[in-house]
């Protein structure tokens, strides 16, 4: 055992208390930032990321908040989040209803990104998935009432691919058609032009994050008719041609005549 003078004892004790104090304080700060960062991860549904953005969690690790994408956007529709915005501080986002993505063919925002936050492997803007348009309110959508608004369909950069108009019978008038806008998730880029253009006071069609907008089948689930097509025959019970057990000399006409003699 080495001899300890009272002096080294005191200074050691002081060193230890001071270090403990600092470590405790700094750790508490770290803990609260950690919790806060967890909240900051929940991007509001109306805030969309630029084309090619990684999943939100990876995006928040890769985006260094330099704003070069914002600077290189020729339409100035990207914004950096201020500390009061709900999107994580300093990260780029846009709001479709205010200013949608104009889908530049050369995607300058991705070219500007110095990190992987905006994925460079996205080279065709038509493959971007910034979100997914959803006709969210059928009660106010003019086309659902039988009017020919069609604005969302007509402004869509992928008209007749990402949004199609499907005719249906108009039961209200009995003699007209409804032209129902249908969004196709395999084509929609989430640019937001439809939401921007919707003529209503509050848009009936909105671009939502894909995680909110899409359902997902259970992995075990199979569509019977698709499996049948793939296999060439039904996989469950063998197909039997339907038989009518009618009295002899009678047959059933499906075209509308009903029962009739052969």
């Amino acid at each position, binding site marked *: 055992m080495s001899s300890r003078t009272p002096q080294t004892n005191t200074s050691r004790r002081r060193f230890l208390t001071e270090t403990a104090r600092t470590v405790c304080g700094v750790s508490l700060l770290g803990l609260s930032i950690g919790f806060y960062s967890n909240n*900051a991860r929940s991007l509001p549904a109306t805030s969309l990321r630029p084309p090619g953005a990684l999943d939100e969690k990876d995006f928040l*690790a890769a985006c*260094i*908040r330099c704003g*070069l994408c914002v*600077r290189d956007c020729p339409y100035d529709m990207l914004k950096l989040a201020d500390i009061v915005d709900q999107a994580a501080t300093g990260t780029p986002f846009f709001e479709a209803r205010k200013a949608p993505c104009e889908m530049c063919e050369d995607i300058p925002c991705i070219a500007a990104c110095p*990190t992987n936050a905006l994925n460079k492997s996205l080279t065709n803007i038509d493959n971007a998935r910034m979100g997914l348009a959803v006709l969210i309110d059928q009660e106010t959508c003019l086309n659902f009432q039988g009017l020919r608004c069609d604005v969302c369909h007509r402004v869509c950069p992928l008209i007749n691919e990402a949004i199609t108009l499907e005719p249906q019978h108009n039961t209200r008038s009995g003699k007209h058609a409804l032209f129902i806008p249908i969004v196709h998730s395999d084509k929609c880029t989430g640019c937001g032009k439809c939401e921007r253009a919707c003529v209503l006071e509050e848009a009936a069609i909105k671009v939502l994050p894909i995680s909110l907008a899409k359902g997902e089948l259970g992995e075990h689930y199979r569509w019977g008719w698709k499996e049948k097509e793939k296999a060439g025959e039904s996989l469950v019970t063998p197909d039997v041609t339907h038989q009518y057990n009618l009295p002899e000399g009678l047959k059933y006409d499906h075209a509308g005549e009903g029962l009739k003699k052969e």
Partner: protein
Amino acid sequence: MQTVTKQNDSNRSWLQTHKWLVIRRISQISIFTLFLLGPLANIWVIKGNLSSSLIFDVIPLTDPYIIIQSLFAGQSLTNTAIIGALIISLFYILVGGRVYCSWVCPINIATDSASWLRKRFNIKSNSLFPRNTRYWLLAITFLIAFITGTLAWELINPVTLVQRGIIYGLWTSAFILLAVFLFDLLISRDAWCGHICPVGAFYSLFGRLGLIRVSAFQRDNCDDCMDCFVVCPEEHVIKPALRGANNNLGPLILEINCTNCGRCIDVCDKEVFKFTHRFNSKIISNNSDNQGSSQ
């Protein structure tokens, strides 16, 4: 530390006693003017902010600190980011790590003002943080990046918030500057830049190699007026260089937290200090009124 110290019997002009301060302010303000020229006047010399930028749309610059946080958060680096971070790292190895703090960072203007007002109005309230708090915090910022898998520290980092706020017109973020100023002014002396800031702590690591250094080359002239200790935001860095003659220390200030701000050069009537490079440890002794010994 009670009052602003005398600009005593010296007959140096204001400009002579504030030379480096003026050059430093010009440096800080012009860097921000260059960033603002783009959005305000459509002259794109430099684009982006201090996290990452492009000069003339060609040369990438990237903050190595934020890139390392990103690595801890599990992301891989792009070539652009690596080249940008290398350029910045080499630059600060050349000029001295914490030159970032005193010549570039806009927070410094606010904390310098707080420090100046403290002396001016004799504000004594001071809750003490140990100087090494910043290194603990630096470690914590890497740790939370690793644990949360995001750049968690950047959500609240006043240094990047304020820079980004000014350059991109995000005024709430820029307002954080006021919080740092008031903290330094009323709660703790030189707290942010001198004790807490992990960005400064990170850049200080480049200071181990920093080529440009302050030297107390005429320390024999020192009349122990203490002006340099009062004016220095990291006063602990001066002592070994100025008073180290008997321990074979100095005259170069090699402590990594010297920010090369040049205040000691400005304040000293005896012209003890000057900027030089790391390998010049020459001492000039011109026995005017001293009794010290040179070596």
